[in-house]
């Protein structure tokens, strides 16, 4: 059902190519496909219309008509226009140029991820900007919400305002500001209660908090899974409270994330950050090109590369490269590789970010790649002696039986692992002949169990 724009265009232009030159009617047909793709990605309808008009104006020009490969050209125009619309120079940056404590107020619907984002943001400002941050929860509605923020604050080593029972939000905010001033905090993050944008009473309350604290930044926290309603909620919060930016949460889900475009378009405010995981360091500067790729169903290649860079230990990698060159890649190194693949979210996590998501996913479920396999293989290797790891040739039947018993696996599984290891070792020998450049090019695929054969 959710075919990406890439697939759609391939079909469309397969048909068009037979006709030769691209006419204006062809562009219209392409625009219809864009409309469908954007709607399936949950971009709100009014925003879709506006966007399609913008693209059409660019596309019905000499570029597309003259282009040798119309499909590529149109996809590029759409993608660029999308990046331009989504993009902002202020991604990842907060305005902290105010009299301290600079107040950052977090607002949004229930369950959008405000409390977690508040803690993540506090961590980021503390670690990256070296700011002294105070966290305060104004959520007196949801049971234990204040306690949740206090626990998270402790986890990121940031102070949270002590909770006073039965205190109302505006009073808490004023007390927080007071403490912030007296104790020399640089930034005060106010985590407000989740509220519906049509709840008159609660919207008045958050406006009162705003008036009492004069926030420098008011961030709307919104779920990347949001559908058409994104325009309504973003508009209301922008009009009633006034926002200076958006934080898009749950970007690590598999939604197409069209809400990002909707909210950006109706508020005119930049998307500053995105939440990319449950851990408290999983808050990143918003990247328009990544989200654009997802909205169009073209995969999140940038995300994959980043994740690889983040999780693969540089030193480890260099050590490994040297070993590969010498041809002394042993089972210990393989175990290290398996661990890194798991750290990157397993095979599923890696595959999910590759272009042509649907196709890969289908293949993945057909191939029945078992995520637990990585762990089992690690277990097998850790059940080996040092000698065995260094020189797998000594592994005779009796040793294999011992390892199977020790790791809770079976001899066939061990055989499979050793075969994989042998394949990889062979491949590395071949790559050594290609030289360092060849190695870099084929590196990741060669590291996948089965030598990456599943994808081809």
């Amino acid at each position: 059902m959710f075919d990406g724009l890439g697939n759609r265009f391939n079909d469309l232009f397969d048909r068009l190519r037979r006709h030769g030159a691209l006419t204006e009617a062809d562009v219209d047909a392409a625009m219809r496909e864009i409309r469908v793709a954007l709607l399936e990605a949950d971009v709100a309808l009014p925003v879709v219309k506006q966007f399609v008009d913008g693209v059409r104006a660019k596309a019905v020009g000499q570029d597309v008509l003259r282009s040798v490969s119309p499909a590529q050209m149109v996809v590029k125009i759409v993608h660029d226009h999308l990046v331009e619309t989504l993009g902002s120079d202020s991604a990842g940056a907060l305005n902290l140029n105010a009299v301290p404590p600079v107040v950052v107020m977090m607002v949004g619907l229930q369950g959008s991820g405000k409390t977690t984002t508040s803690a993540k943001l506090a961590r980021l400002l503390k670690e990256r900007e070296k700011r002294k941050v105070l966290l305060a929860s104004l959520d007196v509605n949801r049971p234990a919400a204040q306690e949740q923020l206090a626990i998270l604050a402790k986890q990121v080593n940031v102070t949270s305002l002590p909770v006073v029972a039965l205190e109302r939000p505006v009073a808490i905010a004023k007390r927080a500001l007071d403490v912030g001033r007296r104790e020399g905090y640089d930034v005060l993050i106010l985590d407000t209660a989740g509220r519906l944008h049509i709840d008159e009473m609660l919207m008045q309350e958050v406006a009162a908090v705003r008036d009492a604290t004069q926030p420098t930044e008011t961030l709307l926290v919104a779920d990347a899974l949001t559908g058409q309603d994104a325009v309504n909620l973003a508009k209301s919060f922008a009009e009633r409270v006034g926002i200076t930016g958006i934080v898009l949460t749950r970007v690590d889900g598999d939604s197409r994330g069209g809400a990002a475009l909707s909210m950006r378009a109706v508020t005119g405010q930049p998307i500053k950050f995105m939440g990319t995981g449950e851990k408290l360091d999983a808050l990143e500067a918003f990247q328009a090109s990544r989200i654009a790729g997802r909205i169009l169903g073209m995969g999140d290649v940038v995300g994959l590369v980043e994740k690889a860079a983040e999780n693969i230990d540089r030193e480890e990698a260099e050590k490994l490269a040297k070993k590969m060159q010498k041809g002394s890649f042993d089972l210990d190194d393989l175990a290290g590789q398996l661990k890194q693949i798991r750290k990157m979210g397993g095979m599923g996590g890696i595959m999910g970010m590759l272009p042509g998501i649907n196709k890969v996913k289908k293949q993945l479920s057909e191939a029945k790649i078992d995520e637990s396999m990585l762990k089992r293989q690690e277990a097998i290797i850790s059940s080996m002696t040092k000698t065995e790891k260094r020189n797998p040739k000594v592994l005779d039947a009796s040793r294999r039986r011992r390892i199977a018993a020790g790791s809770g696996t079976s001899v066939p599984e061990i055989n499979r692992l050793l075969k994989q290891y042998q394949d990889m070792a062979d491949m590395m020998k071949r790559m050594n002949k290609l030289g360092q450049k060849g190695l870099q090019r084929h590196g990741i695929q060669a590291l996948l169990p089965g030598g990456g054969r599943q994808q081809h």
Partner: protein
Amino acid sequence: MSDAKPGLFARLKSGLARSAQRLTDGIAAIVTRRKLDEAALTELEDLLITADLGLAVSKEMVAGLRRTRFNQEASTEEIRTTLAEGAANILRRVEKPLTIDPAIKPFVILVIGVNGSGKTTTIGKLAKSYVDAGKKVVIAAGDTFRAAAVEQLKIWGERAGAFVVAGAANADAAGLVFDALDRARKDSADILLIDTAGRLHNKSDLMAELQKVLRVLKKAEPTAPHAVLLVLDATVGQNAHAQVQTFRDMIGVTGLVMTKLDGTAKGGVLVAIAEKYDMPVHYIGVGEAAEDLRPFVAVDFAKSLVGLED
């Protein structure tokens, strides 16, 4: 939950009415004084799309109007009725209350869903209604990941008068569920409600963890869980399809609860899901109070979706 107190229906209606307001205004604007021509039909289709019904279902519903009413003058009321009937016909198939078999003790209900969809709140509301109906309820605070999730549930447990079995932070959820089942049996509880940590359905390790909870539960009680509720947020868009499909395939879902219908989100994706998965819908949430969890009624949902009053 059938013993509705006075004022509850009004509460539901006011909640849903807000959902429907925008859609209603739109329909009225389109058809009050005009013929149902191609342009009007396109605009109707657009309105259904903005209610998250999705492209396919929206087209299908408008196609019905095109067949029967094309180029006829039609009143807003007629259009609303026809559209509501169309939606209701699809939704009626999935309108099934969650029935508790009194012969099964404890009747085990597992509640799952993505982060922030409203699982804990829904469990609190369910617990309250069961206790009010004279049932003995035990709750397993299976969300051992999110900070203070246990405390949140304990407060709901106190409100409801249900015992909450909780472990330490980051404790093994499967072990906790095992203990809770044990406790429910010893107390001869009627119902065991199991809360779980929110998880995105595309995270394989978290889904594996949930499968483990299920395995441990089945080991202790092979017939359990007797119901698996997937909680969907009404603001969700087309990703609801992926959520339903993945949770169904990996965990096995017996019914849906849609929360947060008191906003402007219309939850129209439910129509598409009903058509595609034939998955029972038990409850809707229309507010933060305990009595704001209401049985799902297809006709009401459909009527409210297009802004029809009784």
